[in-house]
C-alpha cells in the first residue's frame, strides 16, 4: 500500500474494513486470478472494450521530428479513452465481491461515462456523483451516462466540481460500505486503489511492449504520457518501469503558468509532480497543489481530465526515485498539438493526450530551443500514449482557440459561438 513515503490509507475509520476487503479481493482475483477473474476481465476488454489497441506508426510526426514516433491508440477503446480499462476491471471485481451497487465520481464526465458503460455491460446498478457546475458544462457526458442507465447525483456543495464530487462519493461509500463499491477513476485514493487501478490500466504497456517487439524488434527508447491523476500514465509505464533503458516521461498540464495565486487559492496549472508538495489528499499521501497552510488549491488546465490538484502516489514516488521524469507543457502548446495531430495524422486527440504530443514539439519541433539532454532522453523510437479521443473536447477547443493565437489552427470564426 505504500510507495516509499507515498500512498497509504487516509480515510475515515468506517471505510477501513471496506478497503481491507477490497485489498483482499484485489489480491485474490487480480493478482492470483482466482475464479478466472483476470481471464474474464481480459476477454471482456477484448470483446467489449475493443482491445488490443494498435501501436500505430505516425508517419507525419515521424517526418517532422526525425524520430520514429508510435501512437498507442487508447482513443480506440470503447467509450473513447483508456478509462474503460479501469472501470470495467473494478465493476467486474465488485461483481466478484458480491457487491450490489457501485458509485463513482466524475469531473469532466469521462470516468463517469466509462463507469456507466461498464455497469450497463455488467448489469450493475450505478450512481454517479458529479458537481453541479460540471453537470452544466459537460451536458453531453451527463446525457451519455443517463442513457446508459446510470443515476446521476448532482453535488451542490462548494464550487460543484470534481473535488466536491469525490468527497460526496466517499460519503456515500462510508454510508453504504456493505453492498457498495466505489469505482475510483484514477491511480489515486487510499490503498489498494492506486495499485489496483494501475494493474487494470497496465494492459496498455503490456500490449505496447509486445507490439514494440513485434513491430520493430526492440523496446522503445521512451514512452511519453500525459499525467493528471495518472491512470493512463501508470498504465503506459507499468510494464516498462523495470526496463532501465526505456525513458518514461510524464507530461503534466502547465496550464497558463506554473506560479500559484495563494490569495485566491488557485494554481493556474495541474502540475503537482513538478510544483506540488507532499500532502495528504483523498486518502493518500502524494504530491499536492496546496497553499502554505496545506489547504488544497483549485487547479487548472485547458484539459478537464488533467485538472486535478493531486496525482497518483506511485507516480510521485517514481518521479522522486528517477524511473520517471516529470515535465510539463502549457495550455497553448497543448492546443497547438491538438490541431497538429488532427491535421497531419487524421486523429483528433483528447486535450489530455495533446499534452503528451506537445512535449514532442517542445523538445523536437522546429522551434524547440535545442535542449539536447531532453532530446537525447526521448531517443529514436518514441511511444506516445494517445489516451483518448478529442470529440468530447470540441467545444473547449473552439472556446480556447478563440481566445488565443494558435498558429496552426484552421479558421474557426464561424464556430466562435460554439457548436
Amino acid at each position, binding site marked *: 500500500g505504500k510507495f516509499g513515503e507515498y500512498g497509504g490509507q*487516509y480515510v475515515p475509520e468506517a471505510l477501513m*474494513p471496506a478497503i481491507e476487503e477490497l485489498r483482499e479481493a484485489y489480491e485474490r482475483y487480480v493478482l492470483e486470478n482466482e475464479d478466472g477473474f483476470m481471464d474474464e476481465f481480459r476477454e471482456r476488454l477484448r470483446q467489449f472494450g475493443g482491445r488490443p489497441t494498435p501501436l500505430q506508426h505516425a508517419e507525419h510526426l515521424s517526418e517532422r521530428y526525425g524520430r520514429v514516433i508510435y501512437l498507442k491508440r487508447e482513443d480506440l477503446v470503447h467509450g473513447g479513452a483508456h478509462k474503460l480499462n479501469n472501470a470495467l476491471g473494478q465493476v467486474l471485481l465488485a461483481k466478484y465481491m458480491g457487491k450490489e451497487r457501485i458509485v463513482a465520481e466524475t469531473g469532466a464526465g469521462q470516468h463517469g461515462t466509462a463507469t456507466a458503460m461498464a455497469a450497463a455491460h455488467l448489469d450493475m446498478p450505478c450512481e454517479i456523483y458529479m458537481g453541479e457546475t460540471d453537470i452544466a458544462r459537460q451536458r453531453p457526458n451527463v446525457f451519455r451516462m443517463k442513457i446508459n442507465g446510470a443515476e446521476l447525483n448532482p453535488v451542490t*456543495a462548494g464550487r460543484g466540481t470534481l473535488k466536491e464530487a469525490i468527497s460526496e462519493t466517499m460519503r456515500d461509500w462510508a*454510508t453504504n460500505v456493505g453492498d457498495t463499491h466505489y469505482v475510483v477513476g484514477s491511480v489515486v485514493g487510499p490503498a489498494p486503489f492506486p495499485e489496483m487501478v494501475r494493474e487494470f490500466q497496465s494492459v496498455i504497456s503490456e500490449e505496447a511492449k509486445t507490439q514494440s517487439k513485434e513491430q520493430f524488434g526492440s523496446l522503445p527508447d521512451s514512452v511519453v504520457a500525459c499525467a493528471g491523476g495518472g491512470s493512463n500514465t501508470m498504465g503506459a509505464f507499468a510494464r516498462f518501469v523495470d526496463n532501465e533503458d526505456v525513458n518514461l516521461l510524464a507530461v503534466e498540464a502547465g496550464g497558463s503558468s506554473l506560479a*500559484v495565486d495563494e490569495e485566491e487559492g488557485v494554481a493556474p496549472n495541474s502540475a503537482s509532480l513538478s510544483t506540488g508538495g507532499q500532502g495528504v489528499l483523498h486518502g493518500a499521501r502524494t504530491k499536492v497543489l*496546496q497553499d502554505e497552510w496545506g489547504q488544497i488549491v483549485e487547479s487548472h488546465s485547458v484539459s478537464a481530465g488533467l485538472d486535478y490538484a493531486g496525482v497518483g502516489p506511485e507516480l510521485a514516488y517514481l518521479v522522486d526515485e528517477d524511473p520517471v521524469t516529470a515535465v510539463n507543457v502549457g495550455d497553448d502548446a497543448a492546443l497547438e498539438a491538438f490541431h497538429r495531430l488532427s491535421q497531419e495524422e487524421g486523429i483528433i486527440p483528447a486535450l489530455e493526450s495533446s499534452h503528451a504530443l506537445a512535449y514532442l514539439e517542445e523538445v523536437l519541433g522546429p522551434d524547440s530551443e535545442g535542449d539536447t539532454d531532453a532530446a537525447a532522453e526521448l531517443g529514436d523510437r518514441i511511444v506516445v500514449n494517445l489516451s483518448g479521443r478529442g470529440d468530447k473536447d470540441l467545444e473547449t477547443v473552439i472556446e480556447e482557440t478563440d481566445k488565443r493565437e494558435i498558429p496552426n489552427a484552421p479558421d474557426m470564426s464561424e464556430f466562435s459561438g460554439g457548436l
Partner: protein
Amino acid sequence: MSGLADAFSDDEPAFIPYLAVGDPDIAASKQYVEALVEGGADCVELGLPFSEPIAEGPTIQQAVVRSLSGGITPEAYFEFVDDLDVDVPLVCMTYYNLVFRYGADSGTAAGEGDHTAPGPRPFVKRAAEVGIDGFVIPDLPAEEADELRAACDEFGLDLVFIVAPTTTDDRLATIRERVSGYVYVQARLGVTGAQADVSDQTAESLARIADWDVPKGVGFGISTVDHAARVVSAGADGIIVGSALVDIVADAVENDRTTADVADDLRAKARELKEGALRGARESPEAEGK
C-alpha cells in the same frame, strides 16, 4: 491522567459539543464556544476547517465553507484558541493535511519543493502552546498515526480515534493500543449529521469496547434530548454533538440573527442536551442497578 479525560472525571456523563472555528467569523465563534461551555459542555471539539472535508455531511461541510470564506487559517485558529477563556479541555478536530503541512516552509503549489520536510510535530507543538488538549483527525486511521502519536506523546496531548460500526476486531486492537483521551464511538454508518433516530448499532459498538480503560464518547447524529439520554443509558460516558449545533449557526447566518441571540440558543441547546445525558445516566442499567 491526560487533559481530555478530565472531561469525564466527575462521574457525570460528558457533553462534548463541536463547532467549526471561524463560522461565520472569529468573534462570533468565540461567543458561541463560551455559550456552549456556560450551557454545560465538559469539553469542546474545535473544528479547524480543511478544504476537503471528506468525512462530513452537508451541515458541517457548509460550516467549513463559511469559515474558509471568512479567511480562517491554522494560525488564526491557534490564536483563537489562545484567546479563548474557557475552563474545559479542548480538542482540535481537523484533517491530516493541515497537521502534516504546518510549518513546512515550502513545497506548496508555489513550487519550490520541500525544504523543511512536512510532518505533524510543529502543529502539535503549536497546539500544545495555545492550550489544545488533544486531537480528532477523521481521515487518519490508527495505522497511519504513528508520527502524530509520537508528537502527541512528546507534548502531552491526547489522540482520539474513532470506532465505527464496521470496525473489525483486529482493528479494534490496533486502535486500543493507540487511543488516548477518549474513544469516539461512531453511532452509525455514514457521515456527520443530525438524525431523527439513534441507531441500535450504538449499544453494540459500546459493548464491544466496554472493557477499554478510556472513556467512550458517542457521536454522529445525536440531536435531541432523547438521543442524548438513550445513548448514555446505553453505556456512553459522553455524547458528542456537532451538526445539531451547527444547524443553529447556519440558521442564524441565513436569517441574519444577532450573535447574542445565537449564543443564547446554543447555550439553551447545550443545557438541554446535557440534561438529556444526565437523564440517560439516571436511567442506565448501571444506575438502576445501584
